[in-house]
């Protein structure tokens, strides 16, 4: 079982590095919005989500209501429920309720993506490994950014901004080469995303992701239903 844990850690290293650069930026923003270094780091530790945290900090600094906080988090983060549903089908049968309660903490876009790309079922140690290292990267980046925002030259922090997207690309492209159905879903979703971004600019980005994901996956399921062997994955 130990090897599953270290496998999780090693799969989580690129996520952690990407998170560090993104949350560094979050740390800078949070401190500028009037939060302390400790508060900024606590937000990253307890929420572990990018867009939701940014919106949350806006609400805190603008003196918004708790209801607003709940509604905004629901809208931006409801995609995690969809991911949780998808992941629930990939969990090892050994996963107990307490283990599920722990693993729930770590459902993020990136962790979900890497877990989904694994062949076979997911074990608790694997998920703990990937979640632990990712959370360390996320919180450490926030603390570093909040503490020393001006430490890195702009040219470096700007270039670091593409890391997570580069990782997404590496997850999407290889299966798209092999399976026509995945390529179809990918192109469908990208097209939807472009339309929403430029023609319906008032739709929030969290909500836009949900619309794209649901429509593209429904189209994929309709035109390319899985055959039985693929279901085993």
């Amino acid at each position, binding site marked *: 079982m130990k090897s599953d844990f270290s496998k999780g850690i090693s799969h989580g290293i690129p996520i952690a*590095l990407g998170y560090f*650069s993104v949350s560094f930026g979050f740390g800078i923003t949070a401190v500028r919005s009037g939060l302390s270094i400790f508060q900024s780091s606590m*937000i990253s530790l307890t929420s572990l989500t990018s867009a939701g945290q940014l919106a949350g900090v806006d609400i805190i600094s603008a003196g918004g209501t708790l209801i607003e906080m709940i509604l905004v988090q629901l809208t931006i983060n409801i995609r995690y429920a969809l991911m949780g549903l998808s992941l629930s*089908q990939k969990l090892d049968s050994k996963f107990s309720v307490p283990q599920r309660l722990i693993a729930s903490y770590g459902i993020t876009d990136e962790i979900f993506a890497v877990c989904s790309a694994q062949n076979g079922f997911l074990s608790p140690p694997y998920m703990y490994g990937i979640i632990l290292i990712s959370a360390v990267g996320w919180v450490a980046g926030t603390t570093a950014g909040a503490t020393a925002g001006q430490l890195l030259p702009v*040219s470096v922090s700007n*270039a670091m901004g*593409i890391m997570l997207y*580069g990782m997404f*690309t*590496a997850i999407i492209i290889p299966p798209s080469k092999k399976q026509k159905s995945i390529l179809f879903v990918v192109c469908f979703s990208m097209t939807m995303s472009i339309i929403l971004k430029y023609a319906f600019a008032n739709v929030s980005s969290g909500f836009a992701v949900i619309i794209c994901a649901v429509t593209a996956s429904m189209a994929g399921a309709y035109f390319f239903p899985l055959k039985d062997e693929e279901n085993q994955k």
Partner: protein
Amino acid sequence: MKTALYIFVMALTTYIIRMIPLVFFRKKIKSRFLKSFLYYIPYAVLSAMTIPYIFYSTGETFTAIVGTVTAVILSYFDMPLIVVALSASLMAFIAGILK
């Protein structure tokens, strides 16, 4: 104190969203349509998050394009995630200097 309450509510809301499907949804889905739908979700989510936002990720379109092209080529040749992520970032950085 008030800020702590906001942080707590934010975290709790986010956790509940993640926890409910994972903890309460125990049975295997039978519907072929639903299985297929869930199988495609990760690819659809990541595609929508990447395009067009990757082009804004470095604060400058030119360096973002250089990084994107690097990422696409390396991904096409099945390079590991970390290699693709770091190379895209490195090339965007170099493009920013050379420009």
